[in-house]
Each structure stands twice: as structure tokens, then as C-alpha cells.
């Protein structure tokens, strides 16, 4: 149980002198803490009083207080008040105005905490740079904007004076005593940690800690080394564990993690998908390891057929229903959205197989639209390049002149990619909403842009996906369970296939959010939190490439792996967490106050899914032409002779569909045809629940609060009393009123702002 010695404090000396100026009252106390990866202690089956208190598990970290000059202090105070967490629609009370807060940093003055483990053992998690002023909440180690997980550190620079800048790499030696270290986060943050005299004292040069006290150079190098050694694949479980123990008892995941067939069944019923059933054919991951253990298939299709049919798809990823039942605008209907991998053209299927494949793609509909997913979307390498360029542009010291900024932004092409995703998603949602049909998203691997598109389409056409819980389930289903290779795509494996498709998706969602602020229950803050969580290795959600690996790690199906995957090494059973912690357990990383901010106060409850009950029978829908098959590509529908490539013509997707140029201008809106009332459209509202985003040049914007976080002018924030500000005032007034006239209970107009009601009311 006793955790290994580890962790590190830094900074030899903390300024004990009182603040010299008023501004220094805002100087922040920073604790540099480093912690190492622990062999995981087993959690007692019944975590009772024996379980150490949460803080007891934290000798992992040794704190050292430092007066810093991370940005000049004044700005810090301001930044904390009004920057990263103050988003449109969000508000935190201006703490800077509260004088009681100021000098708290002094408490730590002069403290020296030794750290007695070997630096070289440093591995794993957090050089969390931790704001002491807020450190009352030790439970949420990465909750402050100054917290960085190791995986998030993109570049480390030591700086001395104006000119001396050294890029730190593992093994490199410091050529000078740094005054400051700059930590460039891969999530667009920049952390500057400054040191006062402590870092400059002569003993700082000593490679061995003197009296167990470490100094800046050592800390700096420790961070570098720790960063080098940590890989994202490692999960740091210490905190997770402590949190788990801390919030002990039988706990349910906040949203269904879709790891059991019951979850899938519940979800299916919720969506009202009658023609579908949960297939257990992949229960042992022998059809495809990248597919979830369970998925939905058409009711009539037999498991044996599925097994056969899936063999004809790339990596065995056959059509899987992602969403069932849509409503059209005035007749209840039920289109299906399916996703599948590319056809595996080298195979030679027999007639029954083809029939099986076809019937699965048709999913009981006569009208099938095959969507070539990658068409018009950027490639993986493009996305990665754009993201790198964007990051370079958004650095605080980027050398782009102000008047050239816009063209530089354009040059990254990131926004252009966001636009193409939104455009395509909006097109597909029209296809899905307008007629009863089956829309099949086809991508070679079925693991990247299929997920992006299907999630966007669902956000656009299903109001329940726009709620806080609904969105989390959506991500869990379309990304996590569907086997998006998070680890590879986020650069965790060091493989060349790094491409932040998921971050691209989050940007698309942000665009929707800023275009349609009343339609989403979650806020920009929530998206930021999700954006940042991607690199926090405390849960497995984003740490694995496939559901199989994730399950293997958490040890939930040991029995199967032993039997059926004998070739694979047996997972270390003792190392399993088996707690089913996921990224959706927000209270691992965020405080309750922060979780409250996940809620978009501008959300209009009129758009709540309750008022939008699913009606299932497609009987009133406009029937498609008999057995029509279409290819949707380059923004246009083209009739196809057949669904499968094997019969008499070469493969559909093997032959690139780029032969169809996108018409420069529309001749006719598809929506007009789909709903059949072209000239009356203007007078009619859109089909209930359907959103159509704008994707013109001026409408696609830069997610400034995310990408420009490193720049002071953004941190300074554009504060404005917003809706939540008003909400606060409302609450305040109601309280006052209650106090004064206790009999009148004011109408509870303001929402219950309780994190439990927001997050944990699952199902």
C-alpha cells in the first residue's frame, strides 16, 4: 500500500520578502510537483475506513512553493478572473477584487520540502504546476489552467534574459541558469514559470541535491526527462484510484460506457430502432478488434451471415448502425445512418454473401445512399499538418505581423477543413432527415472521419445529442466504442499516423455552438475541458486505440482473452483498475464549480428532447423510388447500379469517386426536392430538431478561447456580463427576497445548478 517515494519539489528558496508592490499581492504561489507512476495498489473490495484518505495517497507529490513571475502578477490575477474560464455565457466572480485573497502565497514562503527519490525514477504523470491559491481542492489535480500533464508538454524552453533561449531535450545540459522555463503545451497553452533568486544560487549547479533540496535546473531537467519517458499510453492511476476510493461505494459510470450488451440494448430501445438488434458476434473480438464487442445489426440478419459478410470489408468493419430512426419534418419516419469500412475487393464473395452485405446496407429500406466519406475531406496527414501550423501560429511569440494574421490563419487550412466537415455533415443530415432511407457512411478504415461525420450528423439532427449527457454518450459511442485510434491519432504511440481528428471534431462542434448558442446544453467550457482531457492520462478513454485494448487493460474480460486470444499476452490482472473510470467522470479533474460551468445557461429548454418524442412508423414518409441506390459524392447524388462492387463492375471505392467534380453552384437545393415544397420553405420552420450550420467564409471562426489561450490578450479576456452573470444576479436577488419575505417562495426560474443533476442523472 505504501507508495514509493517519489515526486519532486523544486525551487530552492521562496521569497520571504513581503510583496514590494501592490501588484505583487497577486503573485501566485506555485507548487511544482512531480509524481511518479505507481504500481497500483489493489483496491479493497469494500473500500471502507481502511482506505487511506485521499490526501494520504498524495505523498506521491511533494510540494514546493515558489513565488513566480508567470506573467507579471497583475495579469495573473486578471487572467484568473477573466480568462480561460470566463467564456461567453460563463462567469466566475472576480476574485481579484477580493483583497482577502492576495497574500496567501506567503504562507508557503520559506518552506523547503525535500524530495528524496532519485530523479531518474521520475516517470509518469504530473508535473502539475499547481496554483496554491486554489489548492484547497487537492482532489482535482489538473483543474487549474496552470496544470499540465506530462503528455501535454510539447516543448520546453529555458530562458535567461532577453536572448538566451535553450530548447531542452532529454539528455541536454543546461548551458545557463534559467530565469524562467517556458512550457509549451500541446493544447495551445503556454506556461511560464519564473524563479526568483532561488534558482540562481550557486548550489543550483550541483547535480546532486544538497540536503535533499532541489533547485530549478534540476527541476527543469527532471521535467524534461519525465516527459521523455512518459508515454501517453501509460495511465497514471494514483489519482484515479484515490478519487475512486474517495467517491467510494458502488458507483455507476456517469454515462453508459457501452461495454455490455445491456447498454446497447437500452440505447437501442431509447432510439426506437425496431428493425435492429444487438449482435454479440464480436463479443470475443474475433470479428474485429477495432469494433466494439456489441453493435446493432438488422433484425433479420443472422450472426453467421454477419461474420461472413464482414469478411468482405476492410479490417472486417461491416456496416454497423450508428443511429436509427429519424423524424422528417412533417411525417414521422425512420431513416438509418450506417457506417462501414471499405469493401475488401480482393475477396471473392459468393452470391449469398453479396446478398447479406446488400441487405445489411439496405437495412430494410429500398432507398440507399452510399456516402464516400473521405471525398472532399482532408486526409489524415493534412489534418496533422494544419494542426501543427495552427499551433505555431497561435503561439504567443509567433512572428506573424498583425496585418498578415488573417492570411496566415487561412494558410494553416485548419478552418477550411472545419468547413468541409461541416458542409458534408450538413448535407448528410439533410439526406437522413428527408426520406426514409439508409445512409451508409463508407470509409476505408471506418475509424476516423466516419466517426466525425456520424457524430456531427447526429448533433445536427437529434436534439438529444445536444444535451450534456447525450453528447457524452455520442462521443462514447461514435468515437470510443467505435474504435477511433485515439492513442495513435494523438501521437501517443509515436507512430506517423498522428492526426488530431477528434480535435477537429471538437472544433466543428464549437462552430455549431457559436452559431447556434441556444441549441446546446453544454457550454464552450465543456468543450475546452474535453479538449484538454484528451491528453490527461488518468482514464483509459483516450489512452487506447481499440475497445479491445481498452477492455484488456481494465481487465474486464480476462476470461475471454485467456481462451480466445492465447496469442496475446495475458493482461496483468493485478494491474487492472476495474473501476470503469472514464473521462466522463469529470470530478476526477474538475471541481464542482467548474463542472457547473459545463452547463450552457443560454440553452433553451424548448429544444429539450422531452418535447420531441420519437415516432417510429415510417409509413407516412415519402417513399423513395423502388430499390434506388445512390452514391453521394462531391456534393451530389449519382445513381448507382448496384451496391456492391463485386458483381460486374470494379469496386466503387477502389475506383476513386473523384471523377465527379463538385458543381460550382447548385442548380437546385436537395432540401427542396426532399421536402417537395420549394417555394414554401421560407415560410416553414425547419423539420423539428434539424439544425443547419453555416459554412461560409465569414461564418467559420477561430476558436480563440482554445487556440489563443497562450496569448496575453486573450487571457486578459473580454469580460462581459453574460447570461450566467444575470443568472447569478437572479439567484442573488431571489435569495434576498427569500430572506426578507420568507413566506413568498420565488418561482424557481433559475436552473438547479447542482453538478449532480447535470452530470450524474444517467438514464
Amino acid at each position: 500500500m505504501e507508495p514509493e517515494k517519489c515526486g519532486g519539489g523544486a525551487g530552492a528558496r521562496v521569497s520571504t520578502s513581503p510583496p514590494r508592490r501592490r501588484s505583487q499581492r497577486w503573485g501566485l504561489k506555485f507548487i511544482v510537483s512531480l509524481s511518479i507512476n505507481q504500481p497500483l495498489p489493489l483496491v479493497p473490495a469494500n473500500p471502507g475506513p481502511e482506505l487511506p484518505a485521499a490526501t494520504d495517497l498524495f505523498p506521491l507529490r511533494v510540494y514546493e512553493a515558489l513565488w513566480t513571475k508567470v506573467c507579471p502578477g497583475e495579469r495573473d490575477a486578471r487572467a484568473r478572473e477573466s480568462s480561460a474560464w470566463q467564456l461567453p455565457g460563463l462567469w466566475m466572480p472576480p476574485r481579484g477584487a477580493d483583497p482577502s485573497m492576495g497574500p496567501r502565497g506567503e504562507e508557503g514562503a520559506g518552506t523547503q520540502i525535500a524530495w528524496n527519490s532519485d530523479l531518474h525514477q521520475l516517470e509518469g504523470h504530473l508535473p502539475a504546476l499547481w496554483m496554491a491559491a486554489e489548492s484547497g481542492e487537492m482532489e482535482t489535480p489538473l483543474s487549474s489552467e496552470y496544470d499540465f500533464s506530462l503528455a501535454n508538454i510539447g516543448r520546453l524552453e529555458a530562458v535567461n534574459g532577453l536572448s538566451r533561449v535553450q530548447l531542452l531535450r532529454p539528455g541536454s545540459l543546461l548551458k545557463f541558469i534559467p530565469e524562467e522555463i517556458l512550457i509549451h503545451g500541446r493544447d495551445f497553452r503556454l506556461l511560464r514559470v519564473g524563479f526568483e533568486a532561488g534558482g540562481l544560487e550557486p548550489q543550483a549547479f550541483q547535480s546532486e541535491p544538497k540536503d535533499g533540496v532541489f533547485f530549478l535546473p534540476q527541476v527543469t531537467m527532471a521535467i524534461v526527462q519525465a516527459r521523455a519517458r512518459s508515454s501517453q499510453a501509460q495511465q497514471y492511476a494514483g489519482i484515479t484510484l484515490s478519487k475512486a476510493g474517495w467517491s467510494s461505494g458502488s458507483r455507476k459510470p456517469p454515462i453508459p460506457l457501452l461495454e455490455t450488451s445491456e447498454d446497447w440494448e437500452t440505447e437501442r430501445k431509447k432510439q426506437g430502432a425496431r428493425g435492429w438488434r444487438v449482435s454479440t458476434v464480436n463479443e470475443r473480438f474475433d470479428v474485429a478488434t477495432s469494433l466494439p464487442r456489441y453493435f446493432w445489426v438488422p433484425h433479420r440478419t443472422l450472426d453467421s451471415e454477419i461474420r461472413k459478410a464482414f469478411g468482405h470489408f476492410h479490417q472486417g468493419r461491416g456496416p454497423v448502425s450508428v443511429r436509427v430512426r429519424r423524424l422528417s419534418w412533417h411525417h414521422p419516419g425512420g431513416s438509418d445512418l450506417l457506417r462501414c469500412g471499405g469493401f475488401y475487393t480482393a475477396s471473392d464473395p459468393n452470391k449469398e454473401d453479396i446478398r447479406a452485405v446488400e441487405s445489411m446496407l439496405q437495412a430494410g429500406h429500398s432507398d440507399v445512399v452510399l456516402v464516400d466519406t473521405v471525398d472532399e475531406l482532408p486526409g489524415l496527414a493534412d489534418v496533422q499538418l494544419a494542426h501543427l501550423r495552427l499551433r505555431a501560429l497561435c503561439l504567443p511569440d509567433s512572428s506573424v505581423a498583425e496585418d498578415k494574421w488573417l492570411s496566415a490563419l487561412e494558410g494553416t487550412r485548419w478552418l477550411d477543413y472545419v468547413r468541409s466537415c461541416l458542409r458534408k455533415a450538413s448535407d448528410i443530415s439533410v439526406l437522413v432527415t428527408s426520406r426514409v432511407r439508409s445512409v451508409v457512411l463508407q470509409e476505408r478504415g471506418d475509424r476516423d472521419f466516419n466517426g466525425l461525420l456520424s457524430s456531427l450528423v447526429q448533433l445536427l439532427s437529434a436534439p438529444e445529442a445536444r444535451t450534456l449527457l447525450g453528447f457524452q454518450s455520442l462521443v462514447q459511442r461514435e468515437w470510443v466504442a467505435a474504435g477511433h485510434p485515439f492513442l495513435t491519432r494523438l501521437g501517443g504511440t509515436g507512430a506517423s499516423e498522428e492526426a488530431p481528428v477528434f480535435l477537429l471534431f471538437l472544433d466543428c462542434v464549437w462552430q455549431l455552438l457559436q452559431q447556434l448558442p441556444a441549441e446546446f446544453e453544454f457550454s464552450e467550457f465543456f468543450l475546452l475541458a474535453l479538449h484538454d482531457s484528451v491528453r490527461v492520462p488518468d482514464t483509459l478513454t483516450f489512452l487506447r486505440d481499440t475497445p479491445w485494448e481498452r477492455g484488456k487493460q481494465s481487465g474486464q474480460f480476462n476470461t475471454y482473452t485467456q481462451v480466445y486470444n492465447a496469442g496475446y499476452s495475458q493482461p496483468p490482472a493485478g494491474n487492472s483498475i476495474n473501476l470503469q473510470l472514464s473521462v466522463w467522470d469529470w470530478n476526477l479533474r474538475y471541481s464542482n464549480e467548474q463542472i457547473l460551468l459545463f452547463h450552457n445557461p443560454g440553452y433553451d429548454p424548448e429544444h429539450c428532447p422531452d418535447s420531441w418524442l420519437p415516432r417510429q412508423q415510417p409509413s407516412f414518409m415519402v417513399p423513395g423510388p423502388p430499390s434506388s441506390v445512390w452514391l453521394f459524392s462531391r456534393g451530389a447524388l449519382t445513381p448507382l447500379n448496384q451496391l456492391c462492387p463485386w458483381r460486374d463492375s470494379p469496386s466503387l471505392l477502389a475506383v476513386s469517386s473523384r471523377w465527379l467534380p463538385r458543381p460550382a453552384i447548385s442548380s437546385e437545393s436537395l432540401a427542396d426536392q426532399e421536402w417537395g415544397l420549394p417555394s414554401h420553405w421560407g415560410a416553414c420552420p425547419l423539420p423539428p430538431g434539424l439544425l443547419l450550420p453555416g459554412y461560409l467564409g465569414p461564418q467559420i471562426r477561430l476558436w480563440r478561447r482554445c487556440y489563443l489561450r497562450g496569448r496575453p490578450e486573450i487571457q486578459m479576456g473580454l469580460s462581459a456580463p453574460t447570461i450566467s452573470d444575470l443568472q447569478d444576479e437572479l439567484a442573488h436577488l431571489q435569495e434576498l427576497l427569500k430572506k426578507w419575505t420568507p413566506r413568498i417562495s420565488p418561482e424557481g426560474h433559475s436552473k438547479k445548478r447542482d453538478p449532480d443533476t447535470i452530470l450524474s442523472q444517467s438514464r
Partner: protein
Amino acid sequence: MVAVTLVPDPVALIKLHVDMLQNMILSSVVSLLLVQEIHTNEKEVTEKEVTLHLLPGEQLLCEANTVLKCVQEDSCQRGIYGRLVCTDFKIAFLGDDESALDNDETQFKNKVIGENDITLHCVDQIYGVFDEKKKTLFGQLKKYPEKLIIHCKDLRVFHFCLRYTKEEEVKRIVSGIIHHTQSPKLLKRLFLFSYAAAAQNSTAADPKNHTVMFDTLKDWCWELERTKGNVKFKAVSINEGYRVCERLPAYFVVPTPLPEEDVSRFQGHGIPIWCWSCHNGCALLKMSALPKEQDDGILQVQKNFLDGIYKTIHRPPYEIVKTEDLSSNFLSLQEIQTAYSKFKQLFLIAPDFLTIFPFFSDNSTEFWDTDIKWFSLLESSSWLDIIRRCLKKAIEIAECLEAQNVNILLLEENASDLCCLISSLVQVMMDPHCRTRFGFQSLVQKEWIMGGHCFLDRCNHLRQSDKEEVPVFLLFLDCVWQLVHQHPPAFEFTETYLTVLSDSLYIPIFSTFFFNSPHQKDGNVGRESQDTQSKPLNLLTVWDWSVQFEPKAQTLLRNPLYVEKPKLDKGQRKGMHCKHQRQLSLPLTQSKSSPKRGFFREETDHLIKNLLGKRISKLINSSEELQDNFREFYESWHSKPTNYHGLLLPHIEGPEIKVWAQRYLRWIPEAQILGGGRVATMNKLLEMMEEVQCLQEKIEEKHHSQEALQAEATSLLRNSVRLSSLFPFALLQRHSSKPVLPTSGWKALGDEEDLAKREDEFVDLGDV
């Protein structure tokens, strides 16, 4: 030529046309369903009589029937048949476009200018289409186009197809429109005067209008007192009756010790004229440069004169004067003109006519192509950069006044273009009064109207010289918009207010923007000449918003987020407003310290200096010292909580200067987001505001006069199902944005030949 200049008896003419109207059943409005016969909807074929509404004094000049106005609705092209008329006030299209507009959404309708009305002054360019080629139309035409395209200055684009109109009518309407919009005009022939003459009795001054007009000595004294400038400056009436100078207003303010005879020495040139006083006593002055002379003798005289002037204003009690020469080292009017004409092209997008007129495809594709190049096109127009430079200059001046305690003297040739722009920007930033609606209106009145900005020339209202047309005032509004956008709670007015104000520039029933100087105005309304039989004309001012908008619509001009300056002396209220006081009334402390001790705590803090300096220095091309001061001032202000009732500085970094979407994008249907945009949250906001007010009232048990107003605004938004992001403007267009999915061969079930056939059909149908 049937052209239109001679009008017999207006009354008879109107009567004639009214009769005509009554007798005429307007050509039925047929929706042109170009591709899909099956979708032809019977309801569309309704017959409706639309009458032309004429303002008092407005005369119908010419008209044409069966004109097809092409509408792009839902990317489905159709045309509406109707009547195109041209009066001496506007070009109007009368068609059955209003059928769907009879609900709450139309409450923001302009009472003067309808949806299909273009005032003659609003017309920017007219193009004609001849044999599939687009040409600019001007002067006498030999050949008449089959299609008329009108680009408006408020960025609307109209397409009128004249193919089905009688040839004679085409000739009459086209030459009439061209004549009345393009040819030079005499000031006396502005519609303004006929309107004022006809509507003499109906106009009464709005009693609630508190805008200070600055046309009396009292107004100037009031302003001096308000800004506490009356210690060192005095209002003079030496120019009463414009005896001294026609460029100056009748009353203005000069430094107290300045001898009055100096004013007349160079006809008001070379005189420091007071604009505004800062709370610390520093003043913003302006001066029009002395005429350029070759003769050494005269130059010497000028020099001596200026020396004398400078001596006067350099001596205590005046602070040191720093001169900002806006004629050199700053923007030129030419630059502004070029930038704006490039910039506006980005938004002048023709409706989508591919199917009707395939030859327009070049235009339309351009638009789609611009998406990818949007940012670089935007940048290459450099309009945003010009905005940035104006804002930066204003910040620099604010820094001098606020932090360095020096007076600023703005110098420009006539002191009526950039002087107006910069001095009013500085005041918007520094004087919270100028951020209220009446304060802002008074500011425009003081700096622009009385400051003698040549609206007539700069807007080219009389079509006399295209060279003089420079959108300086629009630039000012755009700069203010940046501030409004960045600090919404600091302003009592909304961006909608700015947008409608910019539209009002082209409505010639208001006198405000139709004169070059107060002298010109007074000389033309007969205020000077006593002998005329009638009393002086009573011209409307644009500040009387009730002329254009119903009270309900006017609520959209008022910012619900604006927090009035808290009044500390009201005991009970204090409790109510404690929150706002905490947030909004933090003391303004940063500027009192000496500029050398700034924001950076220590000299050793090089890195940050370096990082910030690198970026800021790009903004600055002036001297090192100035750069330091500016940077410190700018950074330190932005590092502190914003006091909305104090100094207000904009962000001017690259990503922070934005496109005024409401003004520039509102007529582009594709740019709409149905149910989106800021208006989506506005509803919620107003609801909560209402509730806050209600609760406050309960607690206070006092009556709140504002309640009724707020409730109205709420209902205005509540009633409409889903507003578009470009509310309140886009509604009038009734467009919805829908995905544009060309479906080559949607109908054709899989046959390539069929596909080709259908494409032929497309073209054929277009000719129907």
C-alpha cells in the same frame, strides 16, 4: 427620350397614378419553378394588389410593368412579377413579396424605406445585361438592357429582369433610373426640400429627444460645463451668421485667452478649436492648417501668427501641447477609399442565377470560391487594417491625454475628415457619456455635423465627384462597432443601432447627413433669409428615430446589457446594484502613475517584455519612446478589470479586429443561420432581465419605468419561432439557409443519357 425631368403638376400626376393603380390589377405573381413542374404550387399564383406608398412631396417619375424581380430564396430561384417605379425619392418594386411577412417578425420594418425600396442616394452602381454581358450603365443609352442590376450602398443587390416588359417602358424606366441616380444634381433639388415643404405641419420635435444639437451657444456652454472645460476654454459667438468663416459652426469653443480677432485673421484657419476636455483637465483640440503659400512674406506672417497662437496655449494653465498631424504619417483619404471599394466587393454578391441566366455563373462561382480565400481577400482589402490604425491612433492620443497629461492638437487641412474621426473615437473611448445613446448622438452632432464633415461630398449624394466619395463616417461607425463588439456592456446602444444609423446616411428626408457644413444647411433652409414668405423649413433630424421605427422596433436599438452608471447616493438601490458596482465600478487606477513606472514589475523581466514587445512593436512604427508609452498604457489597461464607466480601450491585435457581420452580411441569404447567432441567446437574456427587474421591483417596492419597455422587447423576440442570426434584417428577406446540394440526375434513375438530356432542359426552362 421619354426621360423624366419635366413633371407637370405633381398633384395631378399623383392622382393620375392613383387612379391607374386602382384600375390596374397587378400582374399575377408567378413563382417561376424552373426545374420541377411537380412542385408547382397553386397557392403561389395569387393575385394581389400592391399600392405604392408615397411620402409627402414624393413624385412618381416613371414606371414599368411586368418586371421580374429575381429572388433567391432557398437557393431556388424564382422571380416575382411586379411593377418597378422610380420616384424622386426612391426606386421601388411593387410585387407580392409581402404575403409571408404579416407576422411579428416584421416589427422591425422601416417605416420610410420598404424592403424593396432603394433611395436614389443609396444606389451605388447600376449594371445592365446585354446579350449575356454585364456592363456598367451611365449616361445616354443607345441600347437597353434585358436586365438591370442595382448595387446599393447598403450592400443590397437587386436584379430586375426586363425581358417581359414593354420596350417603351424599359426605355423609360432605365433611362429614368440612370438619370436620377447617376447624373449630378443640384443641392436645391434634393428630395429633402420637397419633403420638408410638403410635410411642414406634420413634423413636431420629439420631446424626448435629448440629443444636444450644438447649434446654440447654450449647448456649447453646457458641454463645457459637463466636461469641466469651462475653466480654460470659452464658447464664442464671433461666427454668428457665418461672418468669419463658412467652414466653422456658428458657435464654437476656443482657449479663453485667445483674442477673438485672431479667429477672423485666417478665416478660422490656424485656430485651436476645443473638442473635449479630459477629467484631468487635458484637452483635445483641433486646428485646420493654414493655407499653403509660396510667398515668403506671407509664410512669415503665418509663422508669426502660429507662434502667437502656440504661445497662448503653451502657457499655464495649459498643459504642454502635442501636435498630431493627421495629414501626414497617417491614413490618406485615398487609402480609405481604395480599401473600402475592395472590401465591399466581398459582400456584393449577386443572387444565384445560374439557372435563369447561366452566363452569370462566373459571378456566382466567384462567391463560392471566396470561401477558401476568405481571410486573405479580407486582408488584401486592408479595410480591417485601416480600422486597426484608426483605433491605434485613438489609443495613442488617449494615452497622451490620460497618462502623460498633455494637450493634444489635431491638425488637418480642413479639420473635417480624420479630425472628426479621431477626436470622436477618442471621446468614445474616454468619455462614458459618449457611450450612451444621446451622448453618442450629441457627439456625432458636435464632431461631425458641427465639425463640418462634408457629408454631401463624402457620400457623393449629389453625384458631383466620385473622387470625393470617401466613407469616413462609415469607417468611424465600424471603429465604434469594434468597441461595441468587444465591450458590449459599456454601450447603451447596440450594433443594430449602428447599422441603421449607417443606413440613414442615404435617406434624404433627414437633414443630418445631407449638408457639407452648418453654414450650407442654414443657408438653404431659409433660416438666413428673413424676407421669404414662408417660415424656415423644418428639417427632420435622423435622431428622431420614431420617424423610421415603431417604438417596439426601437427597443432593438437599446442594449439590454448596458448598466447605467451606479448612483451611490441612493441608499436602497445600493443593495440592488452591489454586484454591478463590484464588477463595473472598480476604480480607475492605472493611469495616474507616471508613465515610466508601468506594468512590468522588474527590469529583469525581460522575457515578457520581449514577448509582448515583439508583437506590439509590429503595431507601432513611430518613435521608440512613444512605442514604450503606448505599449505600457495599452498592456496595463488590458491587464486590469474593465471599468465600463471609465476609459475603454479596444483590442487591436490581429485576431481581434473583425468584420461587422450585421452590416455587411445581412443581405446574403447564405450567411444566415436559422435559429442561431447572438439573437438566439438574446431571448433568454431579455427574459432574465425582465425577471431581475421584476424581482428588484419586488424588493424595492418601487415602480420601475423601464419595465414596460423590456417586456415589449421580450415579446418581440418571443413571438417569433426561430429567428435568424442576422436578425433583425434578414427576416425581411425571408430566406433560410439550406444546404445546397446539386443533384445531377436525381430524377434520372441511373441513366447517363437521361442526365445529359436533363441538363438541356435546365437551360430551356430558364428561358421560359
